[in-house]
């Protein structure tokens, strides 16, 4: 997803008040949240949709965002607990049901994406806590017959002189009080929780096997389905013979669903065997026979034509004509699968009561709507129980709700109300589409006769990933998909003559946002080209950037920090027989600023290792520094895989890769040492899950250049080219 989308971008953004302050907490408390409290006690205090305090002092924070490893199930409770003056030891969490009270305050639907979970919840959660604190304090004051202003709340208790009552003891009374109209938030100087590296609430369950992911849902009598999907994009079922599958012991039903043929069985293994024994004839769709090499040619041709204008300043053509020196470059990046560790899955129980869904999703509201459509129900008749997500990276916010739709269709085809889990195996996941698109960039830059950067012309060729999704109208305007060019149009180095174009290509391959979306490829290009611009201007890459960042203080801030951490300018320690190099990249995404320096060692044959990455991040106010650090480490690892080896290859319309042996991802031996610095800031809290990724590829490739003198413009890196 894009960063907090500019509210001027049409109307789908309603309550955008959050980022400007002045936010309303959902005081309407969804029935399901209330009912969910095991205590079911009258005395439970639930002042708003986001927390419950039980008489035994247990505090449950209702988390409206999906926890996929980014730590939101700890950071949202931290925000509540700070202003509640809670005892952190008493805090627990649960995931919210689908209800407007839990909508993303900017997107207006329940959605976890665009690294916006903290940004859109920051004030909302703090106010939810503060409201409860005021009510608990009043309840205590009332009990003691004193003025509330003389009482203070601290670590789960309200105090007045020698009197003290716990939140649990006050819960019943507080529940009778009206919520205050206005609450003040604690000043930073009094924070006890925010900014502290607290241990995650979900960690213990994730070390003993008890954490429940969607895949771990087992309901009474539940069946398991796998679906044979078209091997060609845009293909569909022509005919099928279920006999072989039906002969497999344990197979219960074989049925056509809109996207293929489902084999439903009493367990996964029987379903899988059934699918292997199934005969399906597929009907190819238009352009079903595409291949990666053919696409490369097509994209190259397309790159010769001008695209839709995303940004224009000055006269780039003229400036390039008169440039003293110029570089023209072509970049290519492949399709990428998200490959979360937990493959997609979705449990559906569809009967006359309605439709109940258990899954790990980043997009509850739209998934619910889609499920209702497939089931022929009203959205209110569909319940989604959000589970832990074994990784998301964008895949679990499906723009077409594909995996939920399909699972409901399977339940419908089964037709007898038995709960059924539709499970994707790894090959389904790798070949199932919804990829980070393949892109070709054509860039032409120049400096004038004084060595000053004078022109930057940038054309991006590829699919528009917002097409066919809920944000298409908002994000594709005047033929430009904002995500295709994000990170280029706001280039801090833009010279007076600057032109950015989006040259869209339509293909049957399904596409989706992948961790850091457009920035996943644009920063690779802009930040390696920035180094080339520095070279044209005869400057050190850091000096060139420092000059360009004069009006970009936060870019400058993270860069200065990372240069210091990395000892930029000091010679790298030499190791026998290897060429070493250091590379820098700085990029803003999801409203956060990130700079990275990578150090590489390159062998004579060109094989290389990223030894160390320094990272400096400015994401505004710090909620949990340890989470921020973990997310930087994570984004570096996730971003390094496609630099080293991840790629999808199409041949005759089929994805060649099928599992982790050929769709390779980062392994422990390849993990660089990572050192993270977090800028102390009072700016608004912004993205953390994605901004660490974009600078990684260019920092590594700039380091490879420093080591070998060879520019890298294609990912994954063809290390043979780096041989000495």
């Amino acid at each position, binding site marked *: 997803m894009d960063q907090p989308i500019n509210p001027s971008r049409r109307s789908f953004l309603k309550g955008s008040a959050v980022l400007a302050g002045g936010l309303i907490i959902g005081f309407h408390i969804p029935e399901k949240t209330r009912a969910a409290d095991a205590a079911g006690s009258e005395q439970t205090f639930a002042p708003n949709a986001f927390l419950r305090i039980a008489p035994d002092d247990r505090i449950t924070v209702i988390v409206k965002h999906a926890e996929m490893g980014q730590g939101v199930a700890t950071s949202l409770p931290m925000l509540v607990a700070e202003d509640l003056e809670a005892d952190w030891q008493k805090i627990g969490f649960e995931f919210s049901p689908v209800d407007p009270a839990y909508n993303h305050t900017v997107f207006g639907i329940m959605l976890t994406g665009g690294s916006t979970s903290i940004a859109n919840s920051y004030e909302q959660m703090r106010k939810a806590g503060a409201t409860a604190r005021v009510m608990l304090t009043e309840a205590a004051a009332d009990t003691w017959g004193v003025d509330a202003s003389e009482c203070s709340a601290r670590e789960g208790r309200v105090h007045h002189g020698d009197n003290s009552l716990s939140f649990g003891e006050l819960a019943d009374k507080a529940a009778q009080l009206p919520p205050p109209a206005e609450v003040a938030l604690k000043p930073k100087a009094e924070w006890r929780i925010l900014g502290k590296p607290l241990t995650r609430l979900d960690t213990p369950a994730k070390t003993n096997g008890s954490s429940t992911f969607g895949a771990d849902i087992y309901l009474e009598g539940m069946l398991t389905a796998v679906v044979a999907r078209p091997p060609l994009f845009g293909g569909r079922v022509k005919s099928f013979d279920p006999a072989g599958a039906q002969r497999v012991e344990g197979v219960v039903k074989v049925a056509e669903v809109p996207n293929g043929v489902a084999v439903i069985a009493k367990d996964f293994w029987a379903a899988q065997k059934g699918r292997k024994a199934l005969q399906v004839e597929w009907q190819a769709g238009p352009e079903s026979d595409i291949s990666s090499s053919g696409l490369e040619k097509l994209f190259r041709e397309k790159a010769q034509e001008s695209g839709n204008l995303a940004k224009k300043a000055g006269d780039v053509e003229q400036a390039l004509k008169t440039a003293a020196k110029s570089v023209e470059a072509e970049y290519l990046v492949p399709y990428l699968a998200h490959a979360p560790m937990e493959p997609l899955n979705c449990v559906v129980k569809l009967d006359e009561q309605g439709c109940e869904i258990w899954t790990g999703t980043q997009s509850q509201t739209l998934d619910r709507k889609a499920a209702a459509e497939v089931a022929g129900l009203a959205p209110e008749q569909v319940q989604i129980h959000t589970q832990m997500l074994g990784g998301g990276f964008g895949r679990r916010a499906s723009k077409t709700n594909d995996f939920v739709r399909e699972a409901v269709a399977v339940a419908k085809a089964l037709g007898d109300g038995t709960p059924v889990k539709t499970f994707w195996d790894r090959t389904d996941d790798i070949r199932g589409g919804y990829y980070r698109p393949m892109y070709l960039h054509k860039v032409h830059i120049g400096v004038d006769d004084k060595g000053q950067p004078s022109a930057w012309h940038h054309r991006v060729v590829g699919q528009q990933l917002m097409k066919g999704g809920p944000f298409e109208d908002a994000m594709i305007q005047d033929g430009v998909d904002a995500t295709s060019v994000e990170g280029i149009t706001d280039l801090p180095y833009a010279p007076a003559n600057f032109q950015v174009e989006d040259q869209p290509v339509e293909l049957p391959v399904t596409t989706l946002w992948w961790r850091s979306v457009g920035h996943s490829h644009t920063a690779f290009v802009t930040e390696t080209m920035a180094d080339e611009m520095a070279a044209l201007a005869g400057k050190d890459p850091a000096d060139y950037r420092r000059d360009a960042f004069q009006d970009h203080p936060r870019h400058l801030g993270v860069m200065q920090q990372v240069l210091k951490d990395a000892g930029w300018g000091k010679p790298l320690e030499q190791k026998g027989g290897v060429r070493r190099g250091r590379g820098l990249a700085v990029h803003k995404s999801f409203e956060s600023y990130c700079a990275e320096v990578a150090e590489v060692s390159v062998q004579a044959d060109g094989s290389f290792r990223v030894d160390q990455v320094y990272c400096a991040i400015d994401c505004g106010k710090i909620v949990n520094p340890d989470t921020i650090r973990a997310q930087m480490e*994570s984004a570096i690892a996730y971003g390094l895989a496609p630099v080293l080896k991840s790629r999808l290859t199409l041949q005759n319309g089929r994805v060649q890769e099928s599992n982790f042996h050929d769709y390779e991802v980062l*392994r422990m031996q390849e993990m660089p040492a990572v050192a993270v610095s977090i800028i102390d800031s009072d700016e608004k809290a912004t993205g953390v899950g994605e901004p660490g990724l974009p600078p990684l590829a260019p920092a590594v490739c700039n380091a490879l250049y420093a080591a070998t003198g060879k520019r890298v413009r294609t990912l994954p890196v063809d290390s043979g080219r780096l041989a000495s």
Partner: protein
Amino acid sequence: MLELKVNGATHQVDVAEDTPLLWVLRDHLQLTGTKYGCGESLCGACVVHLDGQPSRACTTPAVAATGREITTIEGLSEKGDHPVQKAWIELDAPQCGYCQSGQIMSAVALLNRNPKPTDADIDNAMNGVICRCGAYNRIRAAIHRAAESMEG
């Protein structure tokens, strides 16, 4: 009918002979801590111990596990307080957590045969266990931490 001894308890399960141990644990015994990640011995999400040896449950036919002691993450310690689990918590190693049962079971097996592993020992032993969240540095650090605490 197969007889399997899992975490000290004996179970009779009625499954097809070729069913991998992983799916018996998950689909039939509802021991869901052991995860599916690839089904082809490529990711390590399904690592369990067979007579103390780390084994990939996704490619181990359940029949091959009969007569052996099967230990899953649920049976590693009574209260989730094995030194490796404790180190994992202290360093907040998990992110999404999906790979972590396999990581922990692999780490325990490593420490059982090599109580004082070097970074290189750890990388070699753990390279087959994928973490898409990239928690590798914390996992490595947690193994060192556990090694120290097990030393006493």
